[in-house]
């Protein structure tokens, strides 16, 4: 990407890195500048599906060969994660649903893997794609609002589903109107309910998106350091600085991506168990 074009090159470089590979469903063609709802971010979907399949493949392999007597390396690793998830779910959620724990496991691992894409050098995959004729490529699915909202809205729908299932349609309605200020302030109660309910998926997805988008952006900014420096005298110290900053940020980012995956999973469990509680 290091096309030295003077002042605007850095802006172009960043812009280019933040553009999804888009597929316009209305015209059925790849179009980097496509807008409107019926557009697929092919790169985000591709990597999210690949990573999900990667996760499911290894976990399924471990599950298939799972023995009580002689767990191998993969089984130990998978069991560690499953056991961790199970403990978290047991601590927070006291309902009967068989869905919550596998859901939390999927979120933990999948979101972690999507975040992990952030640690791959920012130019590696886009450059490879460019070489094979693909113009745009954003490799970190969790820096795409569609992906994070796709997860959080699914969680939101499950929240609503469980809420209605446990409390019944009328019970749910009654709670939205009478909680927490009593039936005389029903409009306020309902307004509060809407804010509270909408805030959950929005904060869930925006937190993940914001952290990862910012992280990715900083990686891109670090990459800009030697962009267009060419053979100038400044190139050497800039290069050293870039490497140092890149390493530092990457190490710090290991913590961030793990933490964000953990937070997303934990909050999902918390929200779902809250949705099933009677007030």
């Amino acid at each position, binding site marked *: 990407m290091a096309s030295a074009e003077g002042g605007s090159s850095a802006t172009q470089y960043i812009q280019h890195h933040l553009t999804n590979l888009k597929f316009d469903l209305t015209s059925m063609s790849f179009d980097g500048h496509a*807008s409107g709802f019926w557009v697929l971010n092919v790169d985000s979907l591709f990597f*999210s599906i690949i990573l999900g399949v990667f996760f499911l493949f290894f976990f399924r392999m471990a*599950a298939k060969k799972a023995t009580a007597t002689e*767990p191998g390396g993969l089984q130990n690793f998978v069991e560690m994660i*499953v056991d961790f998830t199970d403990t978290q779910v047991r601590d927070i959620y006291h309902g009967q649903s068989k869905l919550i724990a596998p859901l939390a*496991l999927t979120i933990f691992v999948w979101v972690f893997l999507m975040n992990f894409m952030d640690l791959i050098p920012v130019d590696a995959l886009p450059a490879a794609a460019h070489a094979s004729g693909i113009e745009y490529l954003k490799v970190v699915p969790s820096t795409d609002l569609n992906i994070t909202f*796709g*997860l959080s*809205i699914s969680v939101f729908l499950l929240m609503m589903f469980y809420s209605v299932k446990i409390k019944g349609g009328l019970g749910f309605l009654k709670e939205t109107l009478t909680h927490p200020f009593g039936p005389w302030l029903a409009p306020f109660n309902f307004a509060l309910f809407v804010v509270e309910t909408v805030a959950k998926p929005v904060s869930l997805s925006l937190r993940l998106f914001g952290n990862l988008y910012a992280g990715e952006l900083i990686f891109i900014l670090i990459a800009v350091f030697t962009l267009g420096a060419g053979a100038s005298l400044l190139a050497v110290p800039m290069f050293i600085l870039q490497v140092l900053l890149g390493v530092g940020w990457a190490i710090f980012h290991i913590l961030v991506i793990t933490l964000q995956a953990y937070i997303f999973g934990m909050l999902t469990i918390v929200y779902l168990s809250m949705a099933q509680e009677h007030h």
Partner: protein
Amino acid sequence: MSINATLLAQMIVFAVFVWFTMKFVWPPIMQAMRDRQKRISEGLAAAERGARELNEATAKAEEMVAKARTQAQEILTNAQRQADDTLERAREDARAEGERIVTAAREEIDQAVASAKEDLRREVGSLAVVGAERILKREIDAKAHNDIIDDLVAEIR
């Protein structure tokens, strides 16, 4: 950066992944872990049972050894007593036998002494007669002088 159909696609993908995890990943792993837990707790219980049984067996063995020791002691004591008895009896028998032998010998000796005395007396009597004959230079009518001889014999006695 805008919301588009990717959102819907992601939701569908998410649903499929969660379903797959719920159906094919979570249950076998949990099952394996639960089985292992059960196995371990069973193993621990078996080990505890084994230890308890060992303790019991040890106690029983000790008891048996103690009993055997008492029994042996008893047998030993009995044997000792029996041996003592036998020895005592044998000693008693020997003493009695010895005494009997000694008595018999003494009687025999007495008898021998008496008969020797008799013989001696008779010899002396005949010697006296012979002496007297020699002195008188004649034969004494034994019949006539029998009473004198008898007197002599009596005197010698």
